[in-house]
């Protein structure tokens, strides 16, 4: 119980920072009341996903549960999807991304030597990753379209 409470406290503190950054991101045009309701809803789902992970002995990370719950709540077949989307769409992904990377920056703070070791290699490897994904996908699509006689 205390663990759940701490998670909720942390999620709400994160939400406060996210909302502040969202206000800056939208140049003050954010609907504050709706944003607060939306972030509270999201925080609640995030904490529920942590609890599900703790309760169900599958090897599924809480992140997957969070995303799955988000997906299930917002499918057109879910009765609360409209309400949930109305409030949670007020804060976009951009400010959340900024806050995550700021936290990431702090968290690698004691391991800068390891980051330096990556250097140019990571750029080369990343570009190969993009190529591999792009052409892997294109090649499969090409053969299936051919088999279907579409191309």
């Amino acid at each position, binding site marked *: 119980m205390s663990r759940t409470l701490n998670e909720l406290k942390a999620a709400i503190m994160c939400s406060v920072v996210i909302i502040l950054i969202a206000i800056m991101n939208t140049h003050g045009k954010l609907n504050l009341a709706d944003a607060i309701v939306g972030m509270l809803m999201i925080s609640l789902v995030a904490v529920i*996903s942590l609890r599900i992970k703790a309760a169900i002995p599958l090897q599924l990370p809480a992140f997957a549960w969070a995303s799955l*719950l*988000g997906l*299930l709540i917002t499918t057109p077949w879910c009765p609360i999807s409209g309400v949930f989307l109305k409030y949670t769409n007020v804060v976009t992904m951009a400010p959340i991304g900024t806050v995550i990377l*700021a936290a990431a920056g702090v968290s690698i703070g004691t391991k800068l030597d390891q980051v330096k070791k990556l250097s140019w290699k990571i750029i*080369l*490897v990343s570009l190969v990753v993009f190529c591999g994904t792009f052409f892997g996908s294109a090649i499969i*699509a090409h053969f299936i379209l051919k088999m279907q006689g*579409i191309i």
Partner: protein
Amino acid sequence: MSENSININEKPKVVDDLATTGRWSSFIKLFAVIGITSGIGETIGKVTIPVGMGAIIILPMVFAMLIAVALTPDAFGKKISALKSLCGIEEVNLASPIMMIILLILGVKLGASAGPKLPQLIAAGPALVLQEFGNLGTIFIGLPLAMMLGMGREGFGATVSICREDTLGLIGERYGMSSPEGMGTMGTYMVGNLFGTIFFGLLGTLGLLTGLHPYALAMACGVGSATMMTASSQSLAMSVPEMADEIFAFAATSNTFSSVDGLYMTLFIGIPIANTIYKKLSWLTKKGEAK
């Protein structure tokens, strides 16, 4: 100073990495640092540097991260001791679990952006469904290369998928964001943020040289983020203007697919395959290190 010593003494007893008891000062300092650096990032805003046909885009998050790194004990904290009392080891250690919570918030958002699109995906054809497996292509090409370059577990993290936000969440939770795996994923993510648009813009055009059909390439345009999809499908459509409508439709649907299934693809197929290949090829890294 006395506060710090209390925190250090208490630490071994704390099992809960988010416990606030006795650590409120660390929480407040950390959130102040995150808030201020994010705020500076947003104030600088998005910077676009045009390069040829594309552009290098620097998002506010990149500035926020660089400034946050600069404030840590390993960077300017070494020289300016006042910084250490704002952002010390305690705060750095707390940043990891806090980041996990923010990633969960992002996870809910990612799911919520996918849910409304589910019906249209069910109606899509087999080529669009199966090409998603092509996204695993990176593991077979990228991972061996990374290991030949002497990258260890960083290479695993960097090549397990195209490393968008969903992978960041998965790898961050399983291995920790400041682990070698986490740094690899973060590396590919950052390179994608900076150069993704320009590189995918190139792929859209150069892909035609391979002889693959524009429809197939259009589906490939959707593998990454929305901005990558926009850049690559626009340059592809510019090269084959008579198919522009189909290209945009295929690219957008494929992108939607990736945003829905990417997480599960990485979790259930990508991570296990990459781990297997990593074990099989581990002799490569040893050779790389010897050089």
